[in-house]
């Protein structure tokens, strides 16, 4: 099996990743970023030397489980909700009829 880290990062891969991250890159940026990201990944190869197959991953430094919130609708008052609505709509790029306005989502009208 080929280890993905063994291969140098290609421009095509960076272009694909940029699209996935919803970023547009010029040709020059693509070249620059490819070189820079490849250098970082090259450096990160040092972890290959480590055998971690039997080591469990750490997702949280301080292990906790079952952290729950009480299901109480009264926790947020009607006034707070209305205040919140006005505040977030006031800083929205565009709003209409108490909703967030966006350009049409092409291809969505099914």
């Amino acid at each position, binding site marked *: 099996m080929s280890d993905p880290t063994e291969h140098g990062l290609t421009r095509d891969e960076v272009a694909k990743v940029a699209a996935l991250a*919803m970023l547009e890159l010029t040709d020059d940026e693509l070249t620059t970023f490819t070189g820079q990201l490849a250098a970082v990944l090259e450096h990160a190869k040092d972890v290959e030397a480590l055998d971690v197959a039997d080591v469990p991953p750490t997702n949280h430094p301080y292990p906790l489980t079952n*952290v729950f*919130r009480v299901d109480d609708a009264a926790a947020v008052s009607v006034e707070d909700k209305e205040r919140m609505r006005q505040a*977030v709509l006031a800083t929205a790029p565009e709003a*209409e009829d108490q909703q*967030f306005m966006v350009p049409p989502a092409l291809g*969505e009208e099914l």
Partner: protein
Amino acid sequence: MNQQNDTLENETPVSSTMLSAWTTESSVEREPQGLPDGWEMVIGLDVHAELATETKMFSPATNQFGGEPNTNIHPVCLGLPGTLPVVNGKAVELSIRVGLALNCTVQRCIFARKNYFYPDMPKDYQISQYDRPLNINGSIQLPSGHVVGVERAHMEEDTGKSTHVGDSGRIHDAGYSLVDYNRAGVPLLEIVSHPDIRGPEEAKAYAAELQAIVIAVGASDGKFEEGSMRVDANVSVRPAGSDELRTRCEIKNVNSLRSLGRAIQYEAQRHVDLYLAGDKPVQETRHWDEEGGRTRAGRSKEQAEDYRYFADPDLVPVDPSPQWIDEIRAALPALPRERRQALLDAGGDPENVAMAVQRNLDSLALVAVSAGAPIDKALVHIVNNLAVDGAEELNAEHFAALVTMESNGDLTSTQAKQVLGEMVESGRAPADLAAEHGFEAMDTSELDVLLDGIIADHPDEWQRFCDGENKLQGMFTGQIMKATQGKADGKVIAQLLASKKST
């Protein structure tokens, strides 16, 4: 752009008559349905059920259907910068209830982020579960007896909703969309079946049974018409009898169980046609077009789905203790299958029994039976006359009394139906309502005398009726109804006419 949503929009409300239309056609046959000879369908269903909590999955905002746009919101479910999710303990409990009702193993689980850009989704990722879901390895036994495996039932959050605003007369040429985040963050349980379903009827029976279960355990209101239950179907076909799994397509945008059946039928046939033409289907998400009666490929398939799942670092594992699981198990109400069995044991007709449980009205029938009323009449009322709002609130003793009055001959079936309708509306007792209308069933001897009088008044007509002019039955029935002011039972009149004609 990659806009994949794994939840369904629900635009077309489903009426209760549509619901009754599909639940009565419960499938007992297991042959492939409606495909050319030699082919069979392989179907798995992903069902999303909104959980009946007061607040959202990770946010203290109210979980409520409808309402003014953007009123059930809070910084957390709007995904505002800096906010953090905290798990709603009640949502976990309801999810475990469903898991136990589906015979699942309930396990320590983690939340994962499913990353994709979508304007209705405030964080541009959905908190869901991936490789460690809460419930795994369950099953559902359908009324037909067939068992469908449940791979998993995992917790996640819903998206908001956007409405496209048309272009006509607006400044914006192509129109625009308005986004409402009231639904964003509503807790969902996604129940994923194994591909054990072989036809549209079986798919509908599975979805109906799952709906009955989530309602029975109080986990969800299971309303297709409000979108609190939504079904995606994974459909493929294969040569009958083989065990291969061919390329499947996931059908979304199915807004009712009737559509589910139609969509599966269409999609399976499409696959067969492709194979017969020497072609084959492509794995993709397709949307059901209700008006066109066909499925259609989603746009933009050039970019493969890559959700970049990883454990959500803002949340910690849920690890239900054996004691907690036991407590939840002990508090579970009777499940639809047991409830159906109780009515079947009392001699109920299987289809009517299934419907009564589906409507959550089976306890009415049980109370009526234990009060000495016949189960058939009780079930017929439940199936035919109680598909109405408010039926759940009907007083079981009142219902039992009504069925008893009818079976004792104190009310005709027509009168009983009318009284039942008024009982639902008013909550009053059947005896009072019947007395107010002056309803009392005519006994047969009274009708006999009345009919003799009518025959005497119309000798010619009677002779023609006896000679086989059947349409005259209506005339005689009408005369009796007129004379009794409608209190006579139509069925009894028919019997009486038949017996007099043959003597």
